[in-house]
């Protein structure tokens, strides 16, 4: 079978890479997560069981990471989707400067998250020399000076969410703008002739028609936000546990590598817990969507 051979030769690189870097690790991560007391140096362990999971679930750092992650998800996903929808609606209804706005809005997508994170840090951080631009602005309007980077938890969380939204907006605006453009303008004309108020047009016509895309963004938004990590590092530095701003993914990497690292078993358990959470949320999302999303 010459044909069979050609095909398999074509697939060989992909299959080989996937086996080594996807399939094997998948099995391995499960194994790791059940191996108790695994020692990275000697590569030995002394038992199997659920101890890794219970350790992780009782680790205050993990609880903190879990809490942070959930807050980030709950705040940024609805807010970013909502604001992106507003902006896309605005964009779809203008002609002048439209291309300019679209270009500007997409910029964060092509910039290095860690690099721009530094700029945000500078804008929000209180140093010996300056309170930071944002804090000064707040004081100018009569508010209290806040250190958003090393200060109170909610101040840090605010910057965190703000930066996360800043980073995810380009993609959402792009997708929603193209979704809005795909709605046949004839529906708007029909609604207009029937004296439909703008909000009702949006709620009864536009939203149902773009609902598959909105839903797609909500699902990917959830998944992305649960995996938040680089943005946090960008703002608060690599030692997120110290800043109290760690996320689940951050916890996984810290367990694996770095100052507190060397525990692949704990890392695996935490990663699997994350996967279970994401999987559950996505399933719930899909179930909700079946009732609310209109598919043509």
């Amino acid at each position, binding site marked *: *079978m010459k*044909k*069979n051979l*050609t*095909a398999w030769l*074509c*697939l060989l*690189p*992909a*299959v080989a*890479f*996937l086996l080594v*870097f*996807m399939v094997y*690790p998948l099995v391995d*991560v499960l194994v790791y997560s059940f191996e108790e007391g695994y020692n990275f140096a000697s590569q030995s362990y002394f038992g199997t069981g659920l101890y890794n999971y219970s350790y992780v679930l009782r680790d205050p750092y993990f609880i903190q990471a879990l809490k942070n992650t959930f807050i980030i998800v709950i705040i940024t996903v609805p807010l970013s989707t909502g604001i992106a929808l507003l*902006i896309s609606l*605005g*964009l779809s*209804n*203008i002609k002048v*400067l439209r291309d300019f*706005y679209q*270009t*500007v809005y*997409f910029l964060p*997508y*092509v*910039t*290095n*998250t*860690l*690099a*721009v994170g*530094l*700029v*945000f840090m*500078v804008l929000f951080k209180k140093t010996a*020399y300056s309170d930071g*631009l944002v804090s*000064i602005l707040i004081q100018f309007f009569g508010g209290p000076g806040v250190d958003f980077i090393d200060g109170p938890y909610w101040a840090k969380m605010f910057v965190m969410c703000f930066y996360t939204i*800043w980073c995810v907006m380009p*993609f959402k605006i*792009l*997708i929603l703008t*193209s979704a809005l453009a795909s709605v046949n303008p004839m529906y708007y004309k029909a609604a207009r002739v029937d004296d439909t108020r703008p909000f009702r047009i949006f709620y009864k016509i536009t939203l149902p028609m773009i609902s598959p*895309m909105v839903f797609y963004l909500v699902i*990917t938004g959830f998944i992305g936000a649960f995996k938040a990590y*680089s943005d946090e*590092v960008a703002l608060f*530095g*690599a030692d997120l546990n110290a800043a109290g701003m760690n996320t689940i993914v951050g916890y996984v990497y810290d367990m*694996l*590598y770095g100052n507190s690292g060397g525990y*692949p078993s704990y*890392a*695996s358990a935490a*990663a699997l817990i*994350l*996967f279970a959470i994401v999987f559950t949320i996505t399933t719930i999302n899909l179930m909700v969507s079946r009732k609310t999303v209109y598919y043509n």
Partner: protein
Amino acid sequence: MNNRDIKNEEARSRAGDVTRITVRYVLLSVWAILVLFPFYWMLLTSIKSYGSYNAEYVPKFYTLSPTIDNYIQAFTAVPLAKYFLNTLIFTVITTALMLLVVILSAFAFARLDFRGKDLVFSLFLSLMMIPNELVIITNYVTITNLNMRNTFLGLILPSVTSVFYIYLLKENFEQIPEELYKAAKVDGTSDFRYLWKVMIPISKPTLVTVVILKVIECWNSYIWPRLITDDQNYFLVSNGIQEIRENGFGRENVPAMMAAVVVISVPLVVIFLIFRHKIMEGVARGGTKG
């Protein structure tokens, strides 16, 4: 309704139009400023001198004495050029290898017949749901055990395959009419010549999409390089910027830091501004098909 009511109605609807347009532009401009301001600030700060920056308790929104000292510092005090070169090498090799792997597999799935094709493809698709975070732990161990830490090979190998791109390209290949293939076969064209001369040119938009997405991903990748490199000679820009942040220029030198940030941001921003329509179209395509 009489003629006077109509005049009132017209005036009201004109006023409504003006309000709506104003609200739209205000909203759009607010977000545009929020997006642009950090870029402005990093450019501005990068040309302020170290002394004048630290002297400003209330930072100024302009500077009258711009300097390029910070840029010189960024390239001399830290190996920024090295980070840059590393990232370039990493991006080019990863993208090229990935293209090869992806094109070959998509070709096999779309054009060649072999036993077990459907099964293998379903297995591929199911891998699409596996998050990177789950497999990165073992990959870290694997690469460490293979003594490939602090090598380009170790950086590149785990990211040269993407099931999603294989899927994207396969869909595209399958849209090429069967007749073209038959015609080529009648003319005695080999499978690979057909792939090279017909399928790849026709699928160029999708390939461009894949390249764009991959280049952006490579340029921004942080987690894997951080795990696999601790030798500065192999740092990518993301790790470099983190290193600058943590250990910096010996002191907290914000203007120099901003200069480094500008240098790192400029290449992708420039490429984006030149090819912006292609890039946005590509990202939308890649995003909505997933």
